[in-house]
């Protein structure tokens, strides 16, 4: 499902996905606060009415490949606000959108016996992409927990999946 902007990269319109005032979050915060950090492939995206039919939310089903922290089972569902049901589309700007087949790393939070959610909305989602050589890459957040000082533009690069996961495991381990 495409929540907000149908990205029409090659056509006339461009899309904007976020519209929210965030508190910036780094990997350290995300790793500390997540009850589970999972890498996997999206296998289902289903919109539904919330209790009382007050609003629309989307249940995302992830077939996990591995956990970098915690475990919620081989298949885990999490919810994101907004979605499309029949004639209506609820768009919560800033909420991440997912499509079946995408490979992602998600930082999940949970409050009690409820369906988990993504920490920090889109800040808690890291999408995997493939290099021309076929290597899996992850674009890290612009915040590095290791370095102080101004953010230097132009040095942020997708990093190998293995390096990213090593960093996350270390941060998650240190936070325990």
């Amino acid at each position, binding site marked *: 499902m495409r929540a907000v902007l149908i990205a029409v990269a090659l056509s006339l*319109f461009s899309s904007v996905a976020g519209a929210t005032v965030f508190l910036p979050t780094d990997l350290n915060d995300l790793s500390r606060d997540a009850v589970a950090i999972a890498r996997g492939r999206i296998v289902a995206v289903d919109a539904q009415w919330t209790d009382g039919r007050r609003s629309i939310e989307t249940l995302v089903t992830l077939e996990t490949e591995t956990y970098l922290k915690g475990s919620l089972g081989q298949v885990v569902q999490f919810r994101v606000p907004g979605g499309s049901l029949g004639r209506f589309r609820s768009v919560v700007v800033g909420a991440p959108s997912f499509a079946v087949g995408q490979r992602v790393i998600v930082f999940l939070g949970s409050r009690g016996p409820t369906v988990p959610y993504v920490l920090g909305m889109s800040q808690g989602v890291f999408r995997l992409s493939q290099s021309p050589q076929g290597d899996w890459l992850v674009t890290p957040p612009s915040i590095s927990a290791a370095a102080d000082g101004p953010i230097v533009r132009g040095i942020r690069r997708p990093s190998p999946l293995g390096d990213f996961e090593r960093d996350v495991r270390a941060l998650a381990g240190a936070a325990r």
Partner: protein
Amino acid sequence: MSGGPVHRVAGLLAIAAVLFGHTQPAFAYLKFGLEAGGREVTLKWTTTPVRYFVTDQTVGGISAADFQAATAQAFATWQSVPSASITYRFAGFTSSTPGDDDGRTTLGFLNEPALDRVLASTSFLVDNVTGALLEADIFFNSAFTWSVSKDGEPGKWDVQSIALHEIGHLSGLGHSAIGETQIVNGSRRVLSAGAVMFPIALGPGDISSRQLDADDVAGISDLYPDGDFNAATGSVSGQVTKNGQGVFGAHVVAFDPGTGEQIANFTLTRSGLFSIAGLRPGPHVIRVEPLDDADIESFFDSAEPVDLSFRAKFYERLVVVPRGGDSGSIQIAVSP
């Protein structure tokens, strides 16, 4: 915070077609768009005033009346832009809460544990068939402490400032990337925000974001132009390339050395085309930089292949913006 996605439709469509030799226009600003009924639709209000309600609840010591007064100030700030036509009207208090898909545009507090890093957020309810905007709600996260004080309060988030940002979204504007942050003790701090629509808040107690910046004014005026806005301003268009290929998602900033104002947009096609409208006539400095000071998905849909792997660059010459026209296409080649 600040910034804004918008578009310039009529004039620039023709301009871009001429400049780039094809029929794909380069829009000024980003904008909210969606697919409805098999066509692309710009998310904006087609009738005004926009009628809004306020949730009738006292939260964290802030009464509904005080909250309404603070948000009304923010609405008035947007409405006072002389080159924009959008207007808003308070329709009353309601027992509904923001997020209820009930056809009422509602502002209010909610306790959202799943949004524990979100101060506030805007949501839309849209007709999937017609693309009509049915309502837009703004929730303020009551998990934080808030202030409606005229002078702000240390340690508390200013309702009016945050409302100003969110009302920009409610009106159809997206985020601006005109801002700088830095890392202090592993956490990001905002050094400066050159637009109300910059997506990261300056900090609790700060009330400096109660005023719009040039980028915000250009955005709202471009989306809801009034008077002679289009005739009195001009645009810069061009193309950003790297190794001979177009760069998608490059942040292009036009700096007016006469006023110090910055107005920006992004390259919005894979061929790297951009257009920045709403500029004062006269010389401008053009800077291109990657969108690496922010969360990409707060600007673009996740499917967009935003290129971050290039170095910031200034265009070698001043670009003169003509009144009511376009600068002509400029070519900017960036380095990996």
